[in-house]
């Protein structure tokens, strides 16, 4: 952080607001400020305001605060995030009814992950329910968050940098590394978190470097420049 390089944080976290999330990290000892964190929900709120939309929200309770001030009456679009236990038949049905009632159904998905790992096992992620609603409503979702090019674009704009001047460090080969590379950035894969050894033989994504962890990544970057 003291190297003179511009640092930003990109996450698809949608169970908590940025503030809560940053708080968690600060408690762990990380020096991070909210304005440097880019998460799907704020990006989506910006899109909603720009396009004058009123969303039907199917998101985790912890995320609702990000949507404060957003008009949700007579919704004309549907937003799904990682709602975990809130993905009940009833809630999904309600979201579906909003979609099917529109002439041009609009569905936003905060990320498109298939699953994630928690202490009690693997759990279905938002992408699964995005596919479900896409199928039901015969609609294609707009994905907000990694690996969407628009999402990375927003971060780059904030940094006032060109893609070739930026490198992304992440544990998700397809969404972090692959997504960044598709935008012209370099991608470094860390061998932590969601990483699996098979990622190093992936059919389509080849990271620019594979390192053990964030410390190693940071070391690699600082020594190369």
């Amino acid at each position, binding site marked *: 952080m003291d190297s003179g390089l511009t640092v930003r944080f990109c996450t698809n976290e949608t169970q908590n607001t940025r503030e809560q999330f940053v708080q968690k990290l600060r408690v762990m000892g990380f020096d991070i400020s909210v304005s440097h964190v880019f998460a799907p929900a704020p990006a989506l709120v910006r899109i909603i305001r720009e396009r004058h939309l009123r969303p039907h929200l199917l998101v985790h309770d912890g995320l609702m605060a990000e949507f404060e001030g957003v008009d949700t009456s007579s919704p004309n679009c549907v937003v799904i995030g990682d709602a975990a236990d809130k993905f009940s*038949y009833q809630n999904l049905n309600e979201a*579906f009814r909003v979609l099917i009632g529109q002439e041009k159904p609009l569905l936003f998905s905060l990320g498109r992950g298939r699953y994630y790992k928690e202490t009690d096992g693997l*759990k279905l992620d938002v992408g*699964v329910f995005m596919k479900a609603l896409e199928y*039901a409503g015969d609609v294609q979702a707009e994905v907000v968050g990694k690996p969407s090019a628009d999402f990375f674009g927003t971060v780059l704009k904030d940094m006032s940098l060109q893609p070739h001047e930026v490198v992304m460090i992440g544990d998700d080969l397809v969404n972090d590394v692959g997504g960044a590379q598709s935008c012209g950035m370099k991608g470094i894969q860390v061998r932590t978190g969601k990483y699996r050894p098979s990622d190093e033989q992936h059919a389509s994504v080849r990271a620019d470097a594979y390192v053990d962890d964030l410390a190693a990544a940071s070391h690699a970057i600082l020594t190369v420049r």
Partner: protein
Amino acid sequence: MAFTLYALIQTAILFTNAIAVLHEERFLSKIGWGAEQSIGGFGDEPGIKAQLLNLIRSVRTVMRVALRSLKAVLVDLSGTLHIEDAAVPGAQEALTRLRQSPVAVKFVTNTTKECKRTLFERLRRLNFDLQEREIFTSLTAARNLLEQRAVRPLLLVEDSAREDFTGLETSDPNAVVIGLAPDHFNYQTLNKAFRLILDGAPLIAIHKARYYKRKDGLALGPGPFVTGLEYATDTQATVVGKPEKAFFLEALRDLNCSPEEAVMIGDDARDDVGGAQNAGMLGILVKTGKYRPGDEGKINPPPHLTCDSFPDAVNHILEHLLGSKQSEN
């Protein structure tokens, strides 16, 4: 006289027949006279070739219908004969009339919430004339598959449908069966199914209907959940219900009837009519139940007929699709 009127009529019939039997794939397309190969855009004066193509196509359509001898009629239940607990007006009487003709009738349904007995009892209560053995459901098809593969299913089906699976071992499951089970669809159960499939359990879908019509509006079918699990596990489900070809062929199997000798009546353009036509049957789309305006344009080829409701479909069958006494198989 060498050239009598009778000879003329004979020639005309033989000529028409010759046109009727021109095979679309094996011949017409190969010489550039297929249905999709006519040149000329909108507003152009139709050229000779286009007009001839139209003639060929019309003759084939008309003759193909008349040449079929109809042996069986498959009828969808929910949305076609009845909507929840109310019969479609005139349906009972239409069914009785249909039964007076020499066709076999079978009731086919993707309903996954109810077992055969419940369906039968409801239809009897609504005064429909049928037998329980004439009902063929996607649950039956699923059960047959489970027995074939000798697997122990995790049954994500409504309690009322479990009756059709009695006798199958369900402890320590190594297969996942997904039907329509709103009461059981929750994050926890879906995760359980997800982990089993990730471990190698086959995913069997009773059907993949996107939605169905309930009294209180449209409701999600099993399709979205099956699609989601397929995405999560990067696998493909085996679908046993409509519109799978296997479903229709299985339904016709004990009627000793080929798909070309059968017609399907239903309210779902894709699953009932599209599926049946894909299996070689004729399809009649009725504008009741889950039908929405424009549905007939969503399948290719379009339904053989789109009509208001079941009684109209029966009228059409009795007036136009029977009585081809010339060709008997």
